[in-house]
């Protein structure tokens, strides 16, 4: 794990690299700008994977919008929802990554149906990353490999950054926009301080909306007013800015 000063710059560099990688991906064959599809192909490329899939999920675990890097992976990604078990479910419910470098080493009792099914497709390792920000949970990014072995430290950092960048774009409701083209907020995705999350909770109560909606409203406000998201958050926490009074 690298340490030291200049970490801020390193984090920003990785985020820029990931955003550029997503933007450089080809558009999906079926048309549209397909952010989710391009995140999947970017993940596959940068993580030396055989394929990647994203499934958006509701709080109850129902599957919504989804995408995959290729048709075979789409089938594998869908398996988890057909069978109702797998690393994607676990990552979503435990709110943390689930990293399985060797499916052959997993106790069969953990995912009795999923493991043989996915192994039949030649998959040997799965890495699942929740798309989340605290209590805001939108789905999971799954990365598949046809060989066993752990992700390296660099690959892990890339994968988690991919999830963060995707999360930020989804919160902006720019599923159909480019990862970096939408301007302000993405630049500081993932590098937030406590005030941002506190402000989300405050705006949630002020507007009587969900925590995810509160975040979207703050991002929209920051964008419209040309302000940094962290500054907006600080004003909310200091009670200089009230979303229930000012109709932002």
């Amino acid at each position, binding site marked *: 794990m690298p*340490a030291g000063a200049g970490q801020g710059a390193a*984090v920003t560099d990785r985020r820029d690299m990931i955003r550029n990688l997503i933007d450089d991906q080809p558009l999906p064959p079926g048309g549209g700008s397909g952010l989710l599809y391009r995140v999947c192909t970017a993940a596959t490329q940068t993580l030396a994977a055989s394929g990647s899939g994203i499934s958006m999920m509701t709080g109850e675990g129902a599957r919504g919008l989804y995408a995959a890097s290729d048709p075979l992976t789409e089938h594998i990604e869908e398996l988890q929802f057909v069978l109702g078990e797998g690393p994607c479910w676990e990552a979503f419910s435990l709110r943390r990554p689930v990293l399985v470098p060797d499916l052959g080493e997993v106790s069969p009792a953990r995912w009795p149906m999923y493991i043989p099914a996915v192994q039949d497709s030649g998959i040997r390792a799965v890495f699942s990353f929740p798309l989340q*920000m605290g*209590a805001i949970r939108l789905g999971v990014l799954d990365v598949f490999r046809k060989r066993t072995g*752990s992700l390296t430290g660099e690959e892990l950092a890339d994968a988690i950054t991919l999830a963060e960048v995707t999360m930020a774009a989804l919160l902006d409701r720019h599923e159909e926009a480019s990862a970096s083209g939408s301007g302000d907020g993405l630049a500081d995705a993932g590098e937030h301080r406590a005030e941002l999350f506190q402000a989300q909770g405050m705006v949630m109560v002020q507007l009587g909306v969900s*925590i995810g909606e509160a975040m979207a409203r703050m991002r929209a406000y920051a964008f419209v007013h040309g302000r940094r998201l962290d500054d907006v958050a600080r004003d909310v*926490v200091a009670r200089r800015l009230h979303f229930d009074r000012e109709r932002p």
Partner: protein
Amino acid sequence: MMTVSVQKLATIFVEIADTLVDEFDVLDYMHMITERVADLTEAPAVGMLLADQHGRLEFVAGSNESVTLVELFVVQNEEGPCLESFRTGEPVVNVDLDHAGGRWPRFAPLAVASGFQSVHAFPLRLRQQVIGTLNVFGDVAGERFGRDDVMIMQALADAATIGLLQERAVSHGEVLTEQLQGALNSRIIIEQAKGAVAQARGISVDDAFTVIRAYARNHNRRLTEVAHAIVIDPQTLRQFLST
């Protein structure tokens, strides 16, 4: 500096080792450690920081969580005892903050302004890797950790690291990443809940944390679980406020 009975110390070590429970919660565990260390050292403030996937130190738990204290943890991504301890894997102890302005031009004045006199940081080590730091602030001039104190504190930090990562399960580095990422996300849930309660009750976020923690204790529920319910379920927030 520490005048602590063997019995008390033994009790703390047992408590730190006791992570083989079904409902182990990383954040509750880390809060417990900061409180025990604060109690043991009579320090006014103790915090724990964990490194994220970028190697940045993120504040995770504090014996108190005032905004000024949290700021002192955040600054240490640039400079300060935690960053030094994190980099070297060695404890940084007995630094007199009044004379540390040259070493840490931002951190030291901020800490002095918050009423602290001394600072210490202990690495959270797992084999060759440093996963975070334990940070202790003192407010009595001239008070120092002796050699034995430092050994005890580092042993506590080592035991806490093993407990934190549930060493029995750390057969692969995967579990380390899973646990740390889970803890960092739980931290965000707590901040979101602090904001919700602060707004609903018209109190400060610092006070909101105290209220949430007291509620979790009184109802024998985990802090993360309570925080999550506050954010996700409007009824819980209402019910929470009526108590």
